[in-house]
Structures are given as C-alpha cells and as structure tokens.
C-alpha cells in the first residue's frame, strides 16, 4: 500500500479514554489503534455520546488518557510542553471566542502567538504566513471586518485560517460544520479537503455529516459502542462499518449511495 510510505503524524496504541474520579474510572472507549498520515483529511464520526469529544479532548491533552500511548510526530504526547505542542497541533473548537471585537486580521494573527516575542510583535515572515492563510481560506474581503459582523460560516473560515497561521502539522476541528446550512457544511469540508492536499497538513475533524465525510475524506474513524475502526470510506462501506453506527429502528445505511435512508 502506498499509504505506508507516508509519514505518520498522530498514532495511538491501545489507547483507553474516559474519565477518572476519586471513586472510579469510567472507560468510554478502549483499545483504540489509529495512524493518521501526513496530508490526509480524516473524519471522525459516531453517534451522540459515543465519545468523539472525549477522544479529541484526550488527543489534544485537555484531559488525560487512561491507558495506552499517544504519539505526535513519533514523540510521546506527554513529553511535549505547552509551547512545543502549540507549534505541532492547532485547534478549532466549538466554543465561541471570548472577544468578538477582534478584527479578522487580528484574530488570524493570534495564530502566530507560539512564534512571536514576549510582547507578540509580528515579523515580516509572520505577516506573510498570516496573509497566506487568509488567501487559502478565501477570506481576503473580510480581512478588516470585526468578528461580530461575520456570519457563522464566515467565522468558521476565519477560525480555520487562524489554525493554518499556527502552522502545525496537525489541525484538529471539533464539529466544524455544526450551526451551518447545507451549502456551508459542504463548503467547509471541501475547503478542509483542499487545504489538506495543498498544505500537506493532517486535518482531523469530528462531524455528524457522515454522507459528506464519506465523499470527501481520505480516511474515516468510525466510533461505535464496541469498537473504533479507521480506514478509507470505501473500505469501511465494504466492511459494513456504518451499518452499526446507529440503532437500526429508524435509519439504515444504503451501501450503494453511501448515505443513510429513513425506514419507510
């Protein structure tokens, strides 16, 4: 397989995720083995409450893993300090940014924070990287607008530009298409596909847009109650991985069209 030649950006080995409290460990998913390759667009899908967010929170070091190991660029994740991690992994979260009085340029420029000096001055290089990120996400015309003037779809593009400006090998997006209309859902995912190809960055996103993800992703990670599998969308369809994604009383997966149908 040609995939094996490509460099692995993120790797998990027998990873267990979940929560620990004083009394007990709550395991949400275990024995997760993933290999995310350079330059790929990877979609993470699964039903509500199955643990997609927990997996992303563990990978981004917001919460600790329970067992197993996590490697980013072949280095154990826990060996990264704050700044190193910021130079290797950037995030687009579901939460709103605290101040919407920032201009689009200022917001994208904040992506350069891990590289700037103590007072945050932008160098020529920083500015050219920021402008490149703005061009790649097609938001030149928004550059001088304030964030509170933007629509949800525009703001999402700006947040993606900010992650690009952070110039990391891995970009992780938590449900980047929620709150968007059908056109913008497709637009954002198509943009991510283009960016993965153009920049060679690995882009991992969680989403409920399974139909779109099947059409656009290089690899998909499917989380069900029993297991976490990852493969190309075509192989996953062959394996029947999508058939068990949801309880089968309401919707069924149609392998021919690669989408879900409501039971008549």
């Amino acid at each position: 397989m040609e995939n094996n030649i490509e460099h692995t950006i993120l790797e998990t080995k027998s990873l267990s995720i979940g929560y620990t409290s004083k009394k007990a460990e709550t395991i949400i998913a275990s024995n997760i083995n993933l290999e995310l390759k350079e330059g790929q667009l990877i979609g993470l899908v699964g039903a509500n409450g199955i643990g997609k967010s927990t997996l992303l929170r563990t990978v981004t070091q917001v919460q600790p893993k329970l067992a197993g190991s996590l490697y980013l660029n072949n280095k154990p994740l826990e060996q990264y300090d704050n700044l190193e991690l910021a130079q290797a992994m950037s995030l687009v979260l579901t939460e709103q940014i605290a101040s919407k009085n920032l201009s689009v340029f200022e917001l994208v420029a904040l992506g350069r924070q891990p590289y700037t000096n103590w007072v945050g001055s932008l160098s020529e290089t920083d500015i050219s990287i920021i402008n490149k990120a703005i061009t790649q996400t097609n938001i030149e015309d928004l550059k001088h607008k304030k964030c509170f003037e933007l629509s949800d779809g525009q703001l999402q593009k700006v947040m993606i530009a900010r992650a690009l400006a952070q110039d990391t090998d891995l970009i992780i997006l938590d449900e980047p298409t929620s709150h968007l209309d059908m056109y913008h859902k497709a637009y954002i995912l198509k943009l991510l596909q283009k960016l993965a190809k153009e920049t060679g960055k690995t882009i991992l996103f969680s989403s409920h847009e399974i139909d779109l993800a099947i059409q656009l992703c290089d690899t998909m990670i499917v989380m069900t109650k029993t297991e976490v599998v990852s493969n190309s969308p075509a192989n996953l369809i062959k394996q029947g991985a999508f058939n068990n994604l949801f309880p089968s009383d309401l919707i069924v997966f149609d392998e021919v069209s690669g989408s879900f149908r409501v039971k008549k």
Partner: protein
Amino acid sequence: MQDTNTYKAPFIVLTLVLILCFFANISLGSVSIPFKTIFESLIGTTDNYIIQNYRLPKAFTAILVGSGLGISGLLMQTLFRNPLAGPFVLGISSGASLGVALVILGSGIFGGIFSTLLISKWSIVIAASLGSFLVLLAVLIVSSRVRDTMAILIIGLMFGSITAAIVSVLSYFSSAEQLQQYIFWGFGSLGNLSWSELGIFFIIYSLGILMSIVSIKGLNTLLLGENYAKSLGLNIKQSRLIIIIATSLLAGTITAFAGPIAFIGLAIPHITRQVINTSNHKILLPAVFLIGAIVMLICDSIAQLPTSDYTLPINAITSLIGAPIVIWLLVRKRKMIF
C-alpha cells in the same frame, strides 16, 4: 507595521490633551495660578508653595490613580471576559475597606490608648494595604484550586459581601465621630499625599504597571478564551497569577493612598475602546493609561470647584461624570464591545 502607524494620530492627540489637563489641573483651584507661574515653578525659577507642596503632588496622584485604576480594570475585563468587571471585583476594595473600618471603627470597640494611637494617616494606609493584600491572598489560594475563572469572580464578590456585613456590624457599635471619619475616607481624596508618600505609591504602582506590560501577549491570547489560549501555548495559571497580582498591586495601593475611587476602573477601558477601536492590548494599555490619567485630572479639577473654597468628594465626581459618559456611549453605539 499596520498597528503602530494607524494609531499614531490618536496617541499624539491624547498625549497633548494629557499635558493640557495636567497644567489646567494645577492652575485651577480655590486660588487660580496662571500657566506662566506654573511653568516657572516647574523649571525652578520661582518658588510657589501651593504648586510644589499641594497642587503638583495632587496632579501626580491623579495621574497615577486614573491610569492605574483604568489599567487594572482593563486587565480584569479581559481576564474575566466580562465587560462589567473592574479592579474591585476581586474584593480588593472590600478588603481595604475592612482594614480601614477595623482601624477607625474597631478602635472604639477595642478602646483605650489604642484609639488615639491608631488613627494616624499611615495606620489607615497600612490597614487598607493589609486588608486588600489578605483578601488577595485568599483569592489566590482559592484560584489555585478552582480552575474556572468565573468562579473566582463570584468568590471575589462574596468576599465583598462578607466585608460589607462586617463593616455594618462595626458601624452599629461605633460613635458618630468614628463613623464620620470612616465615611470621609470613603469619599476618596487625591490631595493628601506628601512627596515621600507619593514616592512609595509610585514604586508599587510601577511594579504593577510592569507586570501589566509583561502580560500584554497573554491578554491578547486570552481574547480567544482559555481553551484556545492554552492551545496557543499560553501558561494559563502563570498568566492569570501575574494579571491578578498586577491588579491587586495597582488597585490595592490606590485604595490605600486615595481611598476607594469608584467607577474609573470600569469606565476607562470602555471609553478607550470607543475612542480607539481595537482589542489589541499593545495599543489599549498605553491608551487606557493616557485616558485614565486625563479623566482623573478633569474629575479632580471639577471636584476642586475652581474659585470656591469648597472641595467635593472625588468619589462622587468620578461617578457623576463617568456614568453618564458610559451610558451615552453605549446608547449611541448600541453595543457593549470588549
């Protein structure tokens, strides 16, 4: 670069306005002093007792108080992502009030020789500093255990309620004379500082300003929210600690030396954001410094009631002037930006 050039003009204007307000402030009062005399006195050709020992320290105090409170308000609004936050939300002024209340009002209860010894100006300064420092210490201990910044905000408010309750209990047992003295402290005052007191004030103030300047990059990152800030490599705990200490140093010393000055800390950052429309702290911080100092000088000049012998409480003036300005700005712009 873009941001330095765009804002050059407003900064030049603000600096000129500040210099003008500084001279006007020294000139105006129960006795008007012409600008020429002020200038001669400043370069040392004439000796003017009023200028050198009263008006000049008072003008400097106004600059320190206005800029210091404005900057600590800016720090708190960004840290707590709340446009209503001010330097006193951490309970700093309540702590200072409690310290002063214990000294002034408590002396009656503890009685004896204590009462005459304790109520000097320095004892009030020390009590206020100690009070705000202790509340700060409590807030810091709590904040090291609580991860949520909003929780710290609420805890600060609770400290405020507790001290207010203790102060009421103390006032219930106090004499009219002591109450009056406590109320007078609450009016705030800029004109009571000698040069040596001003020196100590300035040293602690500078330390607070220095820590604010160090925090500029962190503050900008925090505009995205704490999770994004962390993903950008910011050490949240450390930045939060520096920001809280800077605020306490500024608001704590100001309250100790000038009394609890209302409203400036909340209003100045908002006024500044309306004048200079940016959220970048590299621009905001110096702008807040200038506008805070200007507004405080103007408030003080008004409080002196030029050509009359009366002086109004500065605390009332800051609210009377500041509150309508903020209401007007918000009604006109219809948006509470931060």
